[in-house]
């Protein structure tokens, strides 16, 4: 990640993050969260996302019913829960792809009044999808370039005049090539995205989301369907993201993954937050074992 993104505001952000070693940065980010008492809806030192009374029901089924939840800035937060717990619905609500029945939320210190996906994305909340949405008939590079924000060439009046956007396009292409290199996709650069494997598409989707230098990245099951080698590199990228100051929320099923890279874990069951805390605390929480891990022990999952 480049060092040119502005450091997150708030008391825990050091003056010049690029001067600090990774390990030191990690400590400064994670330490405050370790002091937070692990209970559902607890206040965090420096939240990037705060939601209140968020509710969404489909017919008689209440899919999401979150009284209060804060997502801490600059760390990796895992959102876990059994199937049908409302994880993806919560993602959809927060990113504007679905409308909440009630509730409000604040992103980056600003109330979200009219949640439209594109507006939220431009404000720095970028998501990926459970079923990857790589744009099959565009090349990998074109996919990446789409992620770049504020493009002059995306305005109709400027579009025919190449000299107006050529420089910006070049800068964006350099940035895209950098990210493709990081994500091991550089040799696929000019292939159509539809020819990539499922795992590569997941990587492309994450890399594409990073083109806009987002403040918060929301990944919906980034590891699903990815082969173990690619999954390892994806995990590395997620950790790197948090190190460079990006806040990450991701949905995951694999408990090993969750305990390996998460700084904080939020557990959803039947739409409610039933537990949150550091990964080890949460995994051993009675209610979590009942709601979620209990089923695993029963042998319903491989």
């Amino acid at each position: 990640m480049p060092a040119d993104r502005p450091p997150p505001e708030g008391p825990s952000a050091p003056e010049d993050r690029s001067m600090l070693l990774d390990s030191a940065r990690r400590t400064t980010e994670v330490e405050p969260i370790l002091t937070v008492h692990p209970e559902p809806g607890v206040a965090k030192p420096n939240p990037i996302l705060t939601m209140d009374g968020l509710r969404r029901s489909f017919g008689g089924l209440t899919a999401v019913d979150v009284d209060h939840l804060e997502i801490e800035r600059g760390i990796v937060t895992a959102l876990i829960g059994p199937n049908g717990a409302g994880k993806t619905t919560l993602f959809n609500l927060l990113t504007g792809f679905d409308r909440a029945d009630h509730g409000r939320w604040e992103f980056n210190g600003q109330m979200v009044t009219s949640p439209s996906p594109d507006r939220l994305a431009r404000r720095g909340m970028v998501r990926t999808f459970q079923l990857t949405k790589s744009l099959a008939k565009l090349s990998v590079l074109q996919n990446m370039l789409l992620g770049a924000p504020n493009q002059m060439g995306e305005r109709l009046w400027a579009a025919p005049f190449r000299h107006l956007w050529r420089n910006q396009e070049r800068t964006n292409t350099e940035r895209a090539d950098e990210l493709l290199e990081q994500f091991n996709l550089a040799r696929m650069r000019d292939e159509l995205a539809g020819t990539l494997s499922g795992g590569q598409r997941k990587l492309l989707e994450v890399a594409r989301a990073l083109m806009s230098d987002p403040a918060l990245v929301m990944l919906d099951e980034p590891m699903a369907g990815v082969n173990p080698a690619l999954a390892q590199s994806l995990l590395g990228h997620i950790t790197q993201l948090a190190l460079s100051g990006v806040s990450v929320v991701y949905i995951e099923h694999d408990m090993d993954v969750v305990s390996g890279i998460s700084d904080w874990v939020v557990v959803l069951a039947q739409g409610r937050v039933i537990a949150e805390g550091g990964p080890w605390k949460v995994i051993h929480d009675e209610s979590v074992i009942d709601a979620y891990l209990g089923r695993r022990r029963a042998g319903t999952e491989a």
Partner: protein
Amino acid sequence: MDFDIIFGNAARAAFGPEAIILALAAIGLNIHFGFTGLLNFGQVGFIMLGAYGTSVAVATFGWSLWVGIPIGLFLALALAVALGIPTLRLHAVMFAIVTIAAAEIIRILIGSTDAIGLTGGPLSVSFDAGAFFDLNPYADGPQDRYGVGTFAFTGQQMWVITVGWVLVALVSLIVFLIIRSPWGRVLKSIREDEDAARSLGKNVFWYKMQALMIGGVIGGMAGVIDAIKTSGADPNGFRPQVTFYTYTALLLGGAATYMGPVLGAILFWFLREWIESFLRQLSAEAWLPGAIADFLEGSEGIISVAMVGLALVLLMLFRPQGITGNRIEMQLDAR
């Protein structure tokens, strides 16, 4: 059987005003359907408003043709906005239904007896396109012909054709420039997956609206050429099949390519006229059994349209990307 006449007729249709009108309509539709994925089944509505806007401004209101043409184009633009605001947020299928219905509603309103005072109603409207033909550099005497054999045009036709093909070239160039830009990339991303475009911060509604407006105005240009060519407009010339012919031309040439709509329009008219001429010659042959000759007599036009339809079916089966399309891109759909 005289193949010189058959090929002459076919070539005249392929490069004549009808092909120009179809090419412009298809270029506009290519922006909607080919690049943005909008299922516009009412392209004829834009053509109709272009033609009637021009005709009515000149014939009914007595304004200059140079005022009438922008009015025609403006009405096409207005239709795009009026159609887009309520429907672009809906599912693609809804959009298809609304566009085909809107075009029919407009045609029925224009052609109703209540509209006689304004549009001529079921009677066609006609006006004096002299302002356009005054600029004609081609000699236009009754004996003047340009071309060889049956592949020949009058001076007036030559002027329409010259202006028309220059317009097609200009519009194609502009479309090329805007589609290869980042703006065009956003359109393609919307065609592939609207939600992906949204998640990357693109205002999908606004981009679709822009695409609808541009393609609609280009459709309006087709209408303007049509109005000038015939010095008027007739409601029966704007039935839904005009849209289907436009789709046929676009798919023949290759959707989402730059030259596809133009090549497709030329090919469409070449094939249609070739088959019709051929059948007409055939039905006059002495060796043909009487029953078949009677069947052909007078139905050449209909059979030729059916043959073009058959060609389209075969094309979809064996070369679904059209003449100029990219096979690999098409195969990605199957994944």
